[in-house]
């Protein structure tokens, strides 16, 4: 099949970025917004067409990777060259659809949300840059292209978090996000170098087949190993570090809550639906390699995911900033996806001849549905913030009367994330739980408990906003304009409908579809715990009551620790200030000042001193020069005559 027109999917946002970046200031805001939206709109249409062609026109039931286009970008030697290309396989096509749909919704939504902001065109330019980078990332057929776009999404995230650059907290948050993810990307880069050095290629297919082959052979006697793990496993783990940084896995998650300083549509697009799942996507892209290097690499992935999901869910229960609750919820859900990849061993499913990697499909499925309902949650939160001009839950309540559409769509999203059928989250979460149950009962119990926590904190949020106390607001809250409600309604439909997509028949690690069934023996208890979570939240927050405070004081230490995010930020600050600054930075600064600089200064001082001393020679007196010259000539003459006489010629 011919897919070369997919090059326009990333190219259109790039063109729009260039146009808006260069001429955005000169055009009216509405034109700038329209251009950006048109670019991503066409890209969205193309993505849907591509997905239709890739999935539906394929009758063989086997979805094999297609290189849609490929050019050599940098060529160093015969073997070492960096290509730019487009790889279409089930997960990248799925990601294309997710990214362009959510991005389009955010573009439309921003018409209303960002109305009247200075730098409206700049905002759309950055959104286009982000869309381009993210699309380039998912299309990457080689790991180096992925790294390039990986950094590009980091930059666009930095730019958009720091959009309100006059606010010191936004500037600090953007720097934090950039530095933390950059720190993690160092691991990614080293991982890339290890893997591609061994595999002798940057191509994903080459790396995967090399790792699979290497893991089947007995390890050579002289093979490099460190701490009992082979170099390849270390490479994969380092690559995973980069993914963990981008996907806000513990302990590299600290940037994500702060990133909420950016405009809310940005949080919806970048920090909920697309960029933060790049880590999951990357692990999925290299999944056969991770699978081959199991159990160590996959075990790390699974536990990092499971711990992050639990950790974030506990914190989310205590936060009072509406966007921060959602940020921790995002972190928790990404932990779910990571965990699902980690437990994605091959299992038998009734009705299928061959064993399937259910966790892989479940993870991608959850990524898909999560993008829908989490974007919806953020956009809904944006609509609430737009109405009451406040982020804090304590100043909100009873908003269901004023914001009917936001209320309804937010409720749908909450039900979806809590895992109530027939909303989307139920189906994907069920698959994850099944995969975890088949693999590891401890991981399953963690995820099961987190499912309950998720339902609790989401409905805590919901009841606090739309029920509970009266809103403490200067004016009557008003429903958002049409440009904001249309994306809400669209995404709400997505949050309901996405669960019915037969994901198992499309997106699998082997490219071969399978029949997925409901597992009621696991689904029913998970519905049960979700309903329990909702019921507790309802009892505590639906009517104004003292129950939350009582429970908080009862929980005491745990509540305070969770409220302060388990002191991770403080810990990092302590570590950097006490250890990194004192033990590394200060000695280096001392060395720089007292050795490097001082050496240079010494050279300069000596030169200066000598030149002051000898500058008297250059007196400007012509006759002095002549005298020196003549006496030198005479002295030389005398010497030569003396030597001549000595040599006995005369």
């Amino acid at each position: 099949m011919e897919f070369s027109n997919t090059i326009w999917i990333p190219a259109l946002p790039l063109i729009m970025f260039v146009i808006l970046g260069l001429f955005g200031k000169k055009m009216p805001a509405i034109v700038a917004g329209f251009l950006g939206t048109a670019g991503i709109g066409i890209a969205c249409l193309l993505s849907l067409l591509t997905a239709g062609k890739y999935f539906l026109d394929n009758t063989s039931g086997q979805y094999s990777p297609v290189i849609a286009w490929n050019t050599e970008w940098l060529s160093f030697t015969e073997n070492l060259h960096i290509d730019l290309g487009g790889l279409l396989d089930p997960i990248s096509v799925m990601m294309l659809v997710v990214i362009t749909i959510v991005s389009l919704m955010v573009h439309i939504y921003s018409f209303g949300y960002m109305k009247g902001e200075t730098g409206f065109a700049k905002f759309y330019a950055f959104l286009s840059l982000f869309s381009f980078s993210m699309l380039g990332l998912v299309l990457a057929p080689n790991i180096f292209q992925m790294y390039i776009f990986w950094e590009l999404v980091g930059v666009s995230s930095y730019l958009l978090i720091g959009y309100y650059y006059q606010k010191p907290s936004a500037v600090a948050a953007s720097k934090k996000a950039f530095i933390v993810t950059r720190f993690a990307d160092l691991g990614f880069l080293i991982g890339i170098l290890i893997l591609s050095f061994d595999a002798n290629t940057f191509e994903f297919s080459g790396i995967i087949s090399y790792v699979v082959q290497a893991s089947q052979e007995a390890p050579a006697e002289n093979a490099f190993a460190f701490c009992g793990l082979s170099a390849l496993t270390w490479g994969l783990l380092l690559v995973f570090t980069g993914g963990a940084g981008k996907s806000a896995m513990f302990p590299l998650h600290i940037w994500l809550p702060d990133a909420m300083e950016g405009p809310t549509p940005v949080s919806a697009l970048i920090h909920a639906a697309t960029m933060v799942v790049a880590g999951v996507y990357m692990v999925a892209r290299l999944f056969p390699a991770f699978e081959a290097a199991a159990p160590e690499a996959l075990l790390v992935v699974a536990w990092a995911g499971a711990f992050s999901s639990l950790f974030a869910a506990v914190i989310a229960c205590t936060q009072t900033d509406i966007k921060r609750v959602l940020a921790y919820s995002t972190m928790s859900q990404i932990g779910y996806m990571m965990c699902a990849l980690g437990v994605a061993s091959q299992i038998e499913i009734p009705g299928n001849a061959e064993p399937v990697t259910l966790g892989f499909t479940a993870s991608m499925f959850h990524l898909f549905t999560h993008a829908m309902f989490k974007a919806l949650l953020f956009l809904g939160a944006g609509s609430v913030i737009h109405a009451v001009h406040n982020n804090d839950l304590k100043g909100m309540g009873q908003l269901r009367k004023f914001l009917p559409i936001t209320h309804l769509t937010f409720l749908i999203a909450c039900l979806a994330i809590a895992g109530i059928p027939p909303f989307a989250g139920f189906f994907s979460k069920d698959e994850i739980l099944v995969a975890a149950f088949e693999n590891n009962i401890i991981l399953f119990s963690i995820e099961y408990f987190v499912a309950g926590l998720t339902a609790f904190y989401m409905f805590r949020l919901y009841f606090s906003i739309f029920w509970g106390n009266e809103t403490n607001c200067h004016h009557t809250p008003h429903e958002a304009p049409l440009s904001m409600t249309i994306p809400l309604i669209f995404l709400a439909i997505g949050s309901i409908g996405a669960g019915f997509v037969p994901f198992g028949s499309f997106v699998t690690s082997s490219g071969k579809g399978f029949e997925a069934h409901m597992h009621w023996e696991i689904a029913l208890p998970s519905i049960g715990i979700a309903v329990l979570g909702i019921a507790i939240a309802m009892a505590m927050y639906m009517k104004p009551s003292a129950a939350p405070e009582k429970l908080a004081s009862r929980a005491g230490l745990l509540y305070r620790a969770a409220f302060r995010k388990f002191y991770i930020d403080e810990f990092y600050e302590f570590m950097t200030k006490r250890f990194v600054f004192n033990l590394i930075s200060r000695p280096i600064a001392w060395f720089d000042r007292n050795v490097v600089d001082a050496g240079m200064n010494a050279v300069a001082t000596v030169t200066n001193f000598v030149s002051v001393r000898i500058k008297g020679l250059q007196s400007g007196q012509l006759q002095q020069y002549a005298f020196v010259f003549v006496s030198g000539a005479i002295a030389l003459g005398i010497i030569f005559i003396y030597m001549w006489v000595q040599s006995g010629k005369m």
Partner: protein
Amino acid sequence: MISVIPIQHILILTTLMFFIGVYGFLTRKNLITILMSTELILNSAAINFVAFNKYYYQGEMQGHFFSLFIIAIAAAEAAIAIAIIVNLFRNFRSVNVEEVDKMKY
């Protein structure tokens, strides 16, 4: 005839001329006099060329031509030097070599 004058006499003369020139160059303060001293040095060299040619390489012309070249170069050099001196005088209102020291460090 010329042969009654030994070459040593001519060489003593040119040596005296040369060192008188050097002495003048080093001690005189007036730039015009310094220029004249350099002419003395050049001329002593020119006489040497002619003398050596006459006494040792009779029938050849290189020495004569060299002294002709020296005369031509001396004339050109004098013209340039005078021009420089005139300019210096315009700038400094003086032709005293000790006052012309603007180009030092």
